[in-house]
């Protein structure tokens, strides 16, 4: 059975070049980058190369890249690090209800254990926050705003330029963090236009190794480290560097970022043909989040009325198609994702949602086949499930 992997927002298949590179670095370049001998120099060089490579997605300043163990750690370092270090300037933090758990739970922690006041912005049915509402919230007591670039479940692209300029107008010293895990190396990261101060990225979402990521930190931004140790990564992320994973991240970012514009267009077309094929098959479904043309090029979230997400997911899995469910069938009662819940959808749509997410490894033929199979599964299940 052919395997069609349409869960690329969860993780992506590593490029063969990346696997080979990680393996070579693991086997041959085993020195500690901090060692004085040539083994150390050699390892340090790998990190330097990766750092340059990744800095090229920002402002080419390699000293603004802090390597981490992934997106979660980058978000933790940005949010907890900025809040704690800057608490002398104020006590108020802002984020949205549709952030990734690694963002939301940092704020909940700061609220519960560190005495910060946190505002969680609601979103509209497309998953967009209202910049005007945000503007009213930011005051001289606000020290950090964290808003994601692309939503991981519904593909909403937040108006970061508008957000950035509004919050900085209200209070120029507010730090602006962007979780860019879903958009890094896929969409342009306009850090200056957005007036962003920090941006989180992850390697495994761009066909790189797991356990690798980074936080871009604009020069001059003060953070408190999460860990203390031997001074690596400008003392913001101590510990002997994960050289193979960092090297793999560098290569994966380069390969994904090449011809970014054409690739984005191609992914957008894949998504559209998936959507159109599904429409042509004549089954009923809803699009969750923004209209298909407006969401991020690689994510589409659909609901199939009456069919529990998990049953759909496993039925597609049986046909070799791997997707993600918007609702897990926990303990006999479905638990819809917090993101879909924030969209204020009705129960039926929440419990029947599926996410399809595409990558450069998918092609036209595959996604059309997947759409046809989805239609067939939906039809079959609707016949069984009364």
């Amino acid at each position, binding site marked *: 059975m052919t395997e069609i992997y349409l869960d690329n927002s969860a993780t992506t298949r590593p490029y063969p070049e990346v696997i080979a590179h990680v393996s070579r670095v693991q086997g041959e370049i085993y020195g500690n980058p901090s060692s004085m001998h040539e083994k150390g120099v050699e390892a340090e060089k790998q990190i330097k190369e990766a750092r340059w490579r990744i800095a090229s997605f920002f402002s080419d300043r390699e000293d603004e890249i802090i390597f981490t163990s992934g997106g979660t750690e980058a978000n933790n370092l940005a949010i907890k690090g900025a809040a704690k270090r800057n608490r002398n300037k104020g006590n108020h933090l802002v984020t949205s209800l549709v952030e990734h758990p690694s963002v939301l739970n940092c704020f909940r922690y700061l609220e519960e254990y560190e005495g910060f006041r946190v505002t969680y912005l609601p979103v509209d049915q497309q998953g967009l926050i209202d910049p005007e509402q945000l503007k009213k919230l930011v005051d001289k007591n606000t020290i950090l705003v964290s808003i994601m670039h692309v939503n991981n479940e519904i593909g909403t692209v937040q108006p970061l330029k508008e957000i950035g300029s509004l919050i900085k107008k209200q209070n120029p010293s507010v730090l602006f963090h962007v979780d860019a895990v879903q958009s890094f190396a896929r969409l342009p990261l306009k850090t200056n236009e957005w007036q962003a101060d920090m941006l989180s990225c992850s390697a495994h979402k761009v066909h790189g190794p797991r356990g690798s990521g980074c936080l871009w930190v604009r020069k001059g931004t003060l953070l408190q480290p999460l860990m203390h140790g031997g001074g690596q990564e400008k003392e913001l992320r101590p510990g002997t560097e994960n050289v193979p994973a960092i090297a793999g991240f560098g290569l994966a970012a380069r390969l994904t970022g090449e011809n970014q514009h054409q690739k984005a267009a191609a992914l957008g077309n894949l998504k559209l043909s998936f959507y159109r094929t599904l429409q042509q098959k004549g089954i009923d479904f809803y699009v969750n989040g923004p209209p298909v043309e407006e969401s991020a090029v690689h994510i589409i979230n659909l609901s199939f009325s009456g069919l*529990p997400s*998990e*049953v759909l*997911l*496993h*039925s597609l*899995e*049986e046909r070799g198609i791997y997707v993600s469910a918007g609702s*897990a*069938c*926990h*303990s*006999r009662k479905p638990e819809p994702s917090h993101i879909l819940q924030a969209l204020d959808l009705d129960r039926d749509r929440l419990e029947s949602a599926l996410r399809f997410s595409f990558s450069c490894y998918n092609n036209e033929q595959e996604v059309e086949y997947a759409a046809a199979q989805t239609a067939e599964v939906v039809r079959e299940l609707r016949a*069984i*499930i009364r």
Partner: protein
Amino acid sequence: MPAKIMVRYGEIALKGKNRGQFEQQLQRNLNSALKDFPATVKRLHGRFMVSGPEEQRETMQQRLSKVFGVVSLSPVKEAGLDLEEIKQLALEMVGNMPPERNKFRIKTRRANKDFPHPSPEINQLLGSYLQQHFPRLVVDLKQPSFILSVEIGYDKAYLYLERIAGPGGLPVGITGRGLLLLSGGIDSPVAGWLAMKRGLALEAIHFHSYPFTSRRSQEKAVDLCRKLALSCESIPLHMISLTNIQKELRSQCPEDLSIILLRRIMLRLAELLSARQKLQALVTGESLGQVASQTLESITVTAKSTGMLILRPLLGMDKKEIVDKATAVDTYNISILPYEDCCTLFLPKNPVTRPKLEVVENYEAKLNLDDLLEEAIGSTETIIVKS
């Protein structure tokens, strides 16, 4: 010096041929529990003596304490069959005790009647010797803070201060071979554990309805077997898909009878598998109660689908007792993971609580039962789960 661990066993009523079988099976099971260690198991005046590396003593003890048939075990020290040697060893062992444990008693068991001193005399000689050296020691027969036990064997004397409880019961394999109907819930693993405790060697059967349920519910069954396998060598786990049967029931039979029909089919499949695997009894986590599948009527109608003996070890237990046991056996935390083995889509809202056999049989007659059973048995995937 290798570590020595004395293993006690015994249902008191053991005698004659039974005893020999019991000991042989237990020795095999002890050996298999210790397969990861360079250890030996020797028979000794109604006990087993395990020798192995001292640095692995605690892990060995832990494994041994889970073997059914073991009543208790003790790490022991050996002395020659000589009172002076025994005194010196006792002195050394008691010398290492924290001083606040100062109320003591000595318990001697003389298996070797050629040893010149009878047990009470040894107690007395050894006790006063220890008191001479450690004036803080007071004899307290009722509430001692430590007991020094002495066993006089045929080659050596054994001294110990500690006694670790085993699970008791009978060595697995001695009473026969059974098939456990293992769901992902709290009850059935406990039923399996109790059946093994009475010497039954188990295979397990798990029903799933993939793709209507997650693969993780099957992984859960594997994990539960892994826990149970700590008390035996391994458990073959057979996983059978009920998906098509459930679809068929859904289209052919009334919703409120679906559970009873499905349970009867499960028993038939278990019976078919037992014949193939030469298993003598079924073990279920059923208990008597008031809800749908637990009424006397339901259990009766379900059981009528098979001619096999069905063992229900949980029948006398309350839910709380079952949960406590599941916690002790360490299956509880796996059981409560939220992966269902049966999809809610197939569960009726109001199942019949007092089903009638004729009605159920009438609907079964409409199904192409033989084909459905054959197809399901054909879907069996078996894995041998080792601890």
